[in-house]
């Protein structure tokens, strides 16, 4: 039974011990015969910075794709703030307050950096053709606000001088930062980050982490991020969820997870743990 193996003791966490803002139960996604996500159950508490880790192929990114509506789930359920989200289209889930970034950055290459940012702002009446024509004053005012917010965020990540450049001219690291600040423009309640640190320099990475802490403190934003850099995971998250082979195998504070035998096995390969145990599969 799946429940037996995924049952995990969940000790109280130091920070971000609010009620769960997001819950996933027994989420399944398979591609043909391969179960990429095989009954993943986890929750993310409000105002927490939760890391989702696991070896390559554990199903972390697939899990992101399922809960954000990009893949259709083959089973299970998920809710954001109590609202069921599986089966909803990606844009509807984003509007509910759960916004994601992508592992391979999706800069809108032939649009200026500033337009990338302004696009993400919610509640722009000028995006609907009726209110665009009927209330020009309303959306113009909103454009002003949004532009100011965008410039502020760009400044934070040293992207301000590039505001009018095409996003396609940015370097890989700059694109990563752009995608992140763009996601922040959307003012999500829960932000899902797929390897946000990959490819950005350590100084900016630190600034990004500080900014996450600040957003959590100031506006109560919640973060769930996939990350391979253990230093970042252990030093900056208040809860770590470990996936392997499509399931959640451990869940707890960084200290707890670090010493969990299941986690060590998953990372080093279970063959090592059961040495000489006839691993003939």
């Amino acid at each position, binding site marked *: 039974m799946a429940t037996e193996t995924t049952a995990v003791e969940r000790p109280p966490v130091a920070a971000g011990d609010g009620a769960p803002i997001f819950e996933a139960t027994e989420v399944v996604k398979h591609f043909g015969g391969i179960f990429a996500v095989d009954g993943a159950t986890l929750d993310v508490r409000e105002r927490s910075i939760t890391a989702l880790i696991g070896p390559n192929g554990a199903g972390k990114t697939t899990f992101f794709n399922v809960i*954000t*509506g*990009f893949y259709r789930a083959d089973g299970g359920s998920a809710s954001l703030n109590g609202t069921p989200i599986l089966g909803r*289209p*990606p*844009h*509807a889930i*984003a*509007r509910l307050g759960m*916004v*994601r*970034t*992508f592992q391979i950055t*999706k800069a*809108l*290459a*032939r*649009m200026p950096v500033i*337009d990338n940012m*302004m*696009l*993400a702002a*919610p509640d*722009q009446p*000028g*995006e*609907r*053709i009726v209110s*665009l024509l009927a209330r020009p004053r309303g*959306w113009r005012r*909103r*454009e002003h606000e949004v532009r100011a917010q965008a410039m502020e965020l760009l400044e934070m990540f040293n992207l301000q001088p590039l505001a009018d450049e*095409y996003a*396609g*001219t940015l370097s890989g690291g700059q694109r990563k930062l752009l995608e992140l600040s*763009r*996601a922040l423009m*959307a003012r999500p309640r829960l932000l899902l980050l797929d390897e946000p640190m990959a490819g950005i320099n350590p100084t900016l990475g630190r600034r990004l982490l500080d900014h996450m802490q600040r957003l959590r403190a100031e506006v109560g934003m919640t973060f769930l991020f996939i990350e391979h850099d253990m230093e970042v995971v252990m030093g900056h998250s208040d809860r770590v969820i470990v996936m392997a082979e499509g399931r959640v195998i451990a869940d707890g504070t960084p200290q707890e997870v670090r010493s969990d035998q299941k986690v060590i096995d998953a990372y080093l390969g279970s063959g090592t743990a059961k040495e000489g145990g006839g691993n003939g599969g």
Partner: protein
Amino acid sequence: MTGLPFDPLFAITFESFTDIEFWTSVGILAGTYTILTLGLQLNVGYTGIFNFGQAGFMAVGAYSMAILSVGPNGEGAIVDFWLSLPLSVLITLAFGLLVGLPSLRLRADYFAIAAIAFAEAVRLFALNARSLTGGNQGIFGFAAEWDSVASTVEGWINSLGWSDPPTLFPLLLLVWIVAALLTVTLRWLQETPWGRVLRAVREDEDAARALGKNAFAYKLQSLAISATLGAVAGWFLALNLNFVNPTAFEPIVTFVAFGILILGGLANYYGVAFGAIVFWFLFEGLRFIELPIDEVQVASIRFVLVGLVLILLMAFRPQGAFGKREEMVLGD
């Protein structure tokens, strides 16, 4: 040149080359294709959807205008000519939504196939539904009310001191006024938040969706607006000839519009008018080059030459006349 030992290979017949009536008609055609191609610019240049069915929307617009104003097969008007204009736009808009709803969920290349299939379905329907469309005989006689307006306009022109304007001059004026208004409107739309979402959908649909934009709804709106532009182009095509028949809506119409789009440059609305004028004056001008071959061959040579121009353009200026080179380079 008289001392040449051989006859010149080609020459230009100046008599027809200076025929103002003819060039007025070409100017109307260029205006008509400007309007048609503005729709493609919205779809291809700004939304990233490859609408190969634009001739079909043009056909729906032209036929519904004609049928509404002179009746099925010319058996009596259903509505007034002036009312048939907005109605035909609404009908074409509905067609745009109808075509888009099932097919815009397809991947870009499959949508292109679905769109061209739609356009051919419309044309073949028009060819065969004789009691409605007159089949290959077409429909005519819907322009009387326009003609009376046109003669009023001609009166104004006369009073301004031009005693003998070309017959179709009022239509030329109208088509270019409409084309200019539409160009300005579309350009304005592109600078709004709505236009920004369209461009985001063009760049990366998934990124747009992840930021809460309903990419499908925007693609549908883009296609529907483009369809209405096709309908307006359809009016002018019909009024230019005072005749609608199925051969006017063959797929070549869409391909020519794509040629104009590339000539003028992607993602620039001003380029569309430029492309349309250059294309049609080049294409029709080549008519007057006299070659030692028969007329059917000349007709084919014109296509070859236009193709050659497009190939050279792709080689030396792939962004077209008004497109931005950076955008070509950055595309994926």
